[in-house]
């Protein structure tokens, strides 16, 4: 079942074409990686798919809902970790999680579980503004994971995380997908993509250059990094 799709999607900023005729289909249970160099259009595409940005032309569906018509409905069904770690500056991590659960009307919120998972206990009584970037990123991930949604959009989620937390997050995401969740991961860390994704697309200059099945790639004994360099350079 297709849960994320877009057809002939384009985005123009004045004269600059950030996305050019993007067509994509992502199935339920996919761990999809969108790979590309800096400025390729990864974040723009993620922002359009999550209703944070309007496309210039084309259409996008998430969970069977037209993102341009029903932004709010789509947002109820997805979790987002944006590129910039920007939790509310004047709330403590616990208050952020409480707010997310309250807005999303989550029954039996697992606040303690996520506080423990990301070791946020040591940040009790501190507002997010005074946390380090890595700590803020943990709050952002906690706010996304606690939502219990079936689709997750992650934009460079491993940046600023220490190796131990990276491993924990990777393991959790693998379990999440095993349980039927779908992940849309933006990254230029090819090692993570190779480890986690079953499907990937390489985007360059706003165009999808290639859609890859990681299994097929492995079968052909081709390294993702080699392919990436081949396509981009």
């Amino acid at each position, binding site marked *: 079942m297709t849960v994320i799709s877009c057809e002939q999607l384009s985005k123009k900023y004045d004269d600059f074409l950030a996305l050019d005729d993007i067509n994509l289909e992502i199935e339920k249970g996919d761990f999809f990686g969108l790979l590309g160099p800096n400025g390729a259009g990864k974040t723009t595409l993620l*922002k359009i798919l*999550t*209703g*944070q*940005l*309007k496309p210039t032309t084309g259409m996008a569906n998430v969970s069977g809902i037209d993102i341009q018509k029903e*932004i*709010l*409905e789509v*947002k*109820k069904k997805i*979790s*987002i*970790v*944006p590129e*910039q770690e*920007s*939790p*509310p*500056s*004047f*709330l*403590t991590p*616990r*208050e*952020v999680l*409480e*707010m*997310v659960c*309250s*807005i*999303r009307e989550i029954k039996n919120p697992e606040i303690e579980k996520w506080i423990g998972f990301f070791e946020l206990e040591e940040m009790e*009584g*501190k*507002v997010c*503004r*005074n946390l380090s970037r890595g700590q803020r990123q943990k709050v*952002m991930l906690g*706010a*996304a994971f606690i939502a219990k949604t079936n689709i997750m959009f992650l934009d460079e989620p491993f940046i600023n995380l220490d190796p131990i937390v990276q491993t924990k997050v990777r393991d959790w995401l693998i379990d999440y997908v095993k349980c039927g969740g779908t992940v849309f991961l933006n990254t230029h860390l090819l090692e993570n993509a190779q480890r986690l994704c079953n499907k990937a697309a390489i985007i360059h200059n706003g165009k999808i250059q290639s859609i890859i099945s990681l299994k097929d790639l492995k079968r052909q004994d081709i390294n993702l990094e080699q392919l990436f360099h081949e396509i981009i350079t």
Partner: protein
Amino acid sequence: MNKLIIYRMLQEEIRLNTSFASGKGFYSFPLLVVFSGFLAVIFSDEIISDIGYLDFLKIMHISLIFYGLFAGALAFFGSEFLERIFGYLGLIIGLPTTQPISQRKITFLYFIKELIFYSIFTLLPALIGGLVGSYVNGLEMENVLKFSFTLFTSFSLGLALSYLLSSLYRKSLKSAIIGTALTILIYISLFNRIALTPALEWYLNNNINYLILSLTLPIAVSLLATILITNFYETGTIKTIGYKNRFKEYTEKFRWAKKLSAPPIISKERIDLSRSKTGTKMFFSFLFPLAFLTFLNWFIDKGLPIQVDFNTIFYGVMIGFFGTMLYSWLNTIDSPNFYSTLPVTVSEIIRARLVLFLTITWWIPLIFMILISYMSSELNLLPIGIIVMITVGVYIVNYTALSTGLRTNSALFDAVIFIKFFFISVPPMIAMTILSLAIKYSPSTMLIALSIICGFLTMLSIVFYNKIESKWKNEPFD
């Protein structure tokens, strides 16, 4: 190198402004100023005949000093707001954190950039408009040029004083308050025998010493401000640990407002307001326009041949109008980016801030209203003044919310939005001001007229409020 840095800072300023508003909106702003300069000169004869030549010149100088202070406040205290609006925002003034250039030097260059930017984008267009107006009016162009130069020095002085205040504020709030009081005292004791500013004194009496003094003063103040800057300073004023969990408590408290906005959002905004200490900043920001207003009133009162009583009701109109500032402050506390990850709309956040405006920040204008009516022995007019203040405040804040959304400061840089705002806000203000001034001549008639206008403004407030949903519901947070 300094020239290059100033040049790049100017480029950065223009790009920053065009990212707020549309390019068209930004570049049409100087045209608006040209027109204002033209009108100011065209009607100068009428104003001079009403208030007198000297007072007219003084009002112009006071206005330019305040304009310099205001521009400087935006420049030197604005970076914090910008960061909150845009999230992380790297500006050239932040170079000392990574490059071998001192904070002192970069801030001084920033001051020069501000002087150039405001001169080119506002003072120069005003001068062009003024020169066209003087051609039409038959005024001596040489005289207009000379007077404009004196106004430029007053603007520079205002900007330099803001710079000084910001340098002191970075040391401590106490230094800023003591420094401001000392500056005012020193200025009054040095210049109480001249016509307000050394430049104006030179313009009136052609004493070259005052010309030199008028040029030296802004330079001296800005150099003092530069010397006071240290290379390492903490801009953060909020405490780092020990915050109690208040989210659930406030969510419960605002349960009654669930038809207006989601209680968790109001709760988050409420916590932001108290922990960021924005209430104190809001309070002090009221002092600035009120001081300007009081100065103007004093001059008009002094100059006009008839007695004009600016009473409590008049201040009610003005303070209500300043409600825009409160709403604008609410929009600068924190970046709204996090909301984009949640199933909430921009309109819900706007409505949450309107709830806060009505329930939490109301004490600030109320304090000023009580003080003003007490000081002018008009406590009998206070109830009407408060009703007028609330009506005007609700009206103007609802329109501000509708037209500018979550980015009030930046949206008002757009000439199109600004012009609409002007025409929505100024006519009712003028009507209510006239009625407030005439109240002692025919109280019952004026009260009826005031009630009708208040009723009309209330209806419009409801219309504006209802339109917020359709206008902002589908807008992105970015």
